[in-house]
C-alpha cells in the first residue's frame, strides 16, 4: 500500500513538474517574481547559513583535533580533514538538509495556504497556469542562489575553524592554515556546488508539490509541510549517495 502511494505520489509529482516547466505567461512577471524569490528564499537564508557555518566549522575543527592525538599523524591532518568535511559534505549536503527545513517548510506553507484559501483556484479561473506561476520562480530562484549559499558556507566554516585556532590554544593557527592548504583538490569545490544544485531543486520542487496539492485546512497545511521536509531530506540523502558515486 505504501509502495502504491509512493508511486502515485511520484506520478503526480511528474505531472506537476510538467505543468511547472512550461513557458511563463508573462516573462516580465516571471522575472520580477524570481528576483523577489531570490530575496525571500536565498538572501533571507544568509544569516542562518552564516551562523550555522561558523559554529559547525569551529566544532569540526575542535573534534578533529581532539580525535587526532596520535603523534604519527602529520601536523596538517586536522586542517586537511576539517577542510574535506566542509567541502565534501557539510557545505552542501548538511547545509541543504538544514535549508530543507527552513526554505522547504516556508514554500509548502505559503503555497498550501494559497490552496486552502482558494487563491490557487482564483489563479486558475483567471486562466493563469498556477503551478508555473507559483512554483517556477521559486525553483529557479533557489537553484540559482544555492551556489552563493554554498560558497558562503564554505568560507564561513573555515572562518569558524580559524576562530578556534585564533581564540583558543586547541590548535595552532599556522598548523590549521597549513592543513587547509595541503593537498587541495579544486574538483571538491565543484563537486559540492554541483551536488547543491540538485539538492536545491529537490528542496524547492518537493516543497512546492506538497503545498500545491494540500487538501483541507490549516492542520493539513502543517502536515504537508512536515511531509515535504521529510521527503526532501530523504531524497537529498539518496541523491547524495548517487551523486557521490557518479562525481567522485
Amino acid at each position, binding site marked *: 500500500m505504501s509502495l502504491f502511494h509512493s508511486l502515485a505520489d511520484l506520478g503526480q509529482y511528474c505531472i506537476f513538474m510538467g505543468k511547472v516547466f512550461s513557458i511563463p505567461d*508573462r516573462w516580465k512577471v516571471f522575472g520580477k517574481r524570481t528576483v523577489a524569490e531570490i530575496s525571500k528564499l536565498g538572501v533571507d537564508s544568509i544569516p542562518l547559513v552564516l551562523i550555522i557555518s561558523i559554529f559547525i566549522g569551529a566544532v569540526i575543527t575542535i573534534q578533529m583535533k581532539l580525535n587526532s592525538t596520535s603523534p604519527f599523524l602529520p601536523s596538517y591532518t586536522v586542517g586537511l580533514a576539517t577542510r574535506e568535511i566542509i567541502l565534501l559534505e557539510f557545505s552542501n549536503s548538511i547545509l541543504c538538509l538544514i535549508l530543507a527545513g527552513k526554505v522547504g517548510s516556508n514554500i509548502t506553507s505559503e503555497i498550501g495556504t*494559497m490552496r486552502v*484559501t*482558494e*487563491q490557487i*483556484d482564483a489563479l486558475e*479561473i*483567471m*486562466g493563469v497556469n498556477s503551478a508555473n506561476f507559483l512554483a517556477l520562480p521559486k525553483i529557479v530562484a533557489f537553484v540559482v542562489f544555492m551556489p552563493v549559499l554554498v560558497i558562503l558556507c564554505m568560507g564561513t566554516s573555515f572562518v569558524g575553524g580559524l576562530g578556534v585556532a585564533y581564540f583558543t590554544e586547541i590548535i595552532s593557527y599556522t598548523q590549521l592554515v597549513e592543513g587547509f592548504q595541503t593537498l587541495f583538490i579544486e574538483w571538491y569545490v565543484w563537486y559540492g556546488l554541483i551536488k547543491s544544485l540538485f539538492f536545491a531543486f529537490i528542496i524547492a520542487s518537493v516543497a512546492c508539490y506538497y503545498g500545491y496539492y494540500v487538501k483541507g485546512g490549516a492542520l493539513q497545511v502543517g502536515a504537508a509541510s512536515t511531509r515535504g521536509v521529510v521527503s526532501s531530506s530523504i531524497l537529498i540523502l539518496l541523491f547524495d549517495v548517487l551523486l557521490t558515486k557518479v562525481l567522485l
Partner: protein
Amino acid sequence: MIEVKNVTKSFEGKTVLHDVSADFYTGKTNLIIGQSGSGKTVLMKSLVGLLRPEQGQILFDGRDILQMKPGEMKELRKEIGMLFQGSALFDSETVLGNVMFPLMMFTSMSYAEQRDRAMFCIERVNLGGSENKYPSELSGGMQKRAAIARAISLNPKYLFCDEPNSGLDPRTSILIDDLLSDITHEYGITTVINTHDMNSVLGIGENIIFLNKGHREWVGDMHKIFSATNQALNDFVFATDLFQEVKEYIVRNGHTAHGSARRNKDNYEI
C-alpha cells in the same frame, strides 16, 4: 447567456448532479440556491471549468466549454470574473496589486493605464483610500468588495460569486448584494450567485434555480417564490417562523418581494 443542458457529475460513484438543466441570463442576477450538499458548489465549479461533468453541455453564449481546447478555454477565462467565498485575495499584494493582477497578466496596458483602470474599479466598489492596504488589514466586507473589484477589472462578461455573503453581517451582506446587482445591470454581465442567504434570494433574485439533492427542482424569481408549491423549496426558503410570516403577509396583501425584502439605502452608508 449561459445554458446548462443535462449536466451530470459524480464523485466516486456518487452522483451529485442529476441531469441538471438551467439558463443564466445576461444582465440579470442569477441565483443558485439549495441546502448544503445539494450540488450548488459542484454546479458552480462545473460552470467555471474547475470540475468536468461526465455528461451534458455548458454553453457560454453558444460555446460549449466541455468541448473547448485548452487554448480556447484560456481565452474564455479572460471573460470570467469570480468572487470566492473567502475572497481569495492574494495576501502578498495590496488591494491595488490584487486588482491590477489580471490586467498585468492579460492586457498590454502600460503600468499607468493598469493603475487607472484598477483605481476605477476600486472606486466603483467604494474602496477608494484603501488601495494600499493589504487584505489582512481589511474587514470581511471590504475584502469582498476588493475581490469584486478584481473580478470586474477585465470587464468580464460572466461573473460568478460563491456565497458572497458568507461570514458577513446582515447590513454588509446587503451592501454586497446591491453592489453585485448594480454592477450586473450597469455592465450587462451574466452574474451567477451561489447563496444560502434568504435576504439575497428575496432582494436580488431575478432568476433563481433551486437545487435539491442534485436535482433542479424549481426555477423562478423572487416574486414567484412566494407562490411556489414545491415543498422542498418552501421548507428551505421559509424555514424560519419569520420568513413564514413574511410569506403569509405578502401573499395576503398581494405584495412583491421588492416591497418587503428590499432595503432602504438611506439607512446606511456604502
